[in-house]
């Protein structure tokens, strides 16, 4: 599922009018739930790339939208909410990963494999090839510097450069340099 463009997210939360002040809690809840329905899978995809388990990913997604609810009810700035949502997810994922490192048994990679979509191709040879390509991508992401991996995954989710810049906390120039660097490495990896 493609995430909605940022302006539609902003419209949904009435950035310009500041109308949320007069909203009832139930209205606000419904808006946040609507956003959750649209963003849950992209957020899961993003945080799983940090090596989190699906369970941790779900918890992160829940926390993101609880934070969003608090954010909008406190009348805090609502510009670039799509970037804001991913920023919170990014920070929570880092925090969760840090916590998991203290627990040696927590490892998400096995779970990712377990819930993978079954390959629709009936050809066993194609299935093997597809699995190899997936393994190569995972290995590639694994060796990428964290910042480059985040930029690449966020761009894959459709975020614009300024949004990525606010999520990862780097300049616009650094975002484009990072993406170009990752793609060059990717091309090199495929050439091999």
């Amino acid at each position, binding site marked *: 599922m493609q995430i909605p463009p940022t302006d539609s997210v902003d419209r949904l939360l009435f950035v310009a009018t500041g109308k949320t002040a007069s909203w009832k*809690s*139930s209205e*606000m*809840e419904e808006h*946040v*739930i609507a956003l*959750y*329905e649209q963003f*849950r*899978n992209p957020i*899961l*995809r993003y945080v*799983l*790339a940090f090596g989190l388990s*699906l369970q941790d990913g*779900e918890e992160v*997604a*829940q926390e993101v*939208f*609880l934070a969003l*609810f*608090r954010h909008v*009810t406190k009348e805090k700035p609502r510009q670039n909410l799509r970037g804001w949502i991913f920023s919170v997810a990014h920070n929570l994922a880092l925090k969760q990963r840090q916590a998991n490192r203290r627990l040696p048994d927590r490892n998400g990679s096995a779970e*990712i494999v377990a*819930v*993978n*979509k*079954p*390959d629709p191709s009936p050809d066993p040879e194609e299935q093997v090839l*597809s699995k190899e*390509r*997936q393994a*190569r*991508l*995972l290995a590639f992401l694994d060796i990428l510097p964290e910042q480059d991996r985040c930029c*690449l*995954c966020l*761009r*894959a989710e459709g975020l*614009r*450069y300024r949004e990525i810049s606010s999520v990862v906390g780097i300049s616009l120039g650094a975002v*484009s*340099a990072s*993406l*170009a660097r990752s*793609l*060059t490495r*990717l*091309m090199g990896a*495929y050439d091999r």
Partner: protein
Amino acid sequence: MLKKNLHPSDEDLLLFSDGELSARGAARVRRHLAACWNCRARAAKIEAAIGEFMEIHGQTFGLTWPPIAGPRALLRARLAEASLNRDRDGGQPSFLSAKARGLAYVCALLLLVALGTRVLIRHARGHETAEYGGLLPNPTLTPGVTRPVALGDLCSMDHDEVVLPISDILRQQVFDEYGMQGEPFENYEVDYLITPGLGGSEDLRNLWPQPRYNATWNSFVKDRLEDYLHQMVCQRKLNLATAQKDVARNWISAYQKYFHTNVPLSQDASGVQTLPLHVKRVDFIPLGDTRPTRSKLYWTFLPMASTED
């Protein structure tokens, strides 16, 4: 950035392709690409890498996610809780006029008097509650509520089938009502005072947290009483209203009255012999689940079955 008469860098090509260049910069790259096969080939290679990445990314992380219904319901509940807190705490501090402050003081005083009276009343009539060590609900919070129901409807099903599991939201509300925030759920069973099999309602005033770990007057004993009263009512040997009133007033006294004993019958207290395998009360049904699992039932059943008086 792109210089005149120079080939664009990979970064420039990417910025162009992503629509992140200024109009002027984009026009310059477009002109250059129109004239330079080499750069077009590089741009195509970048596009191909993006395409390849997206395809595998989709396969790798485009997982078959678990259904959203459960997590969404959980979020809804958590948002509702956050809203409650917001409504409770969210009022902006306002400067009250002297008159309004005076009124507030009077209200606070009246509230204190009312609370004191309530405590005194509870103390006066609370001997039997204290006698059973909290095994009876607080009569103020849980007086027992019934729903309008025809006897035929109640008796058309087995008692067990009439009883619905209690939702997590309601369970939390019961704990909140009893000021038991932070208490472990697993030590209590949120139970109907008047069971739905006797016309009890799924209402906060008909639910209370019943301690699980008591071997004498435990939930199995109450189950047995409820089964028996249901049976009596359906056989027209007992009036429904009387059964409801007796249970709501003091279910332990009701057990003693109907079973003619001061202590629970041994098989009732153990729960092992008298309970059907499909134990009727099931706690901790996660949101989104519609049916309890066997393991959860077993988990609920086990601690009670192992206790002895």
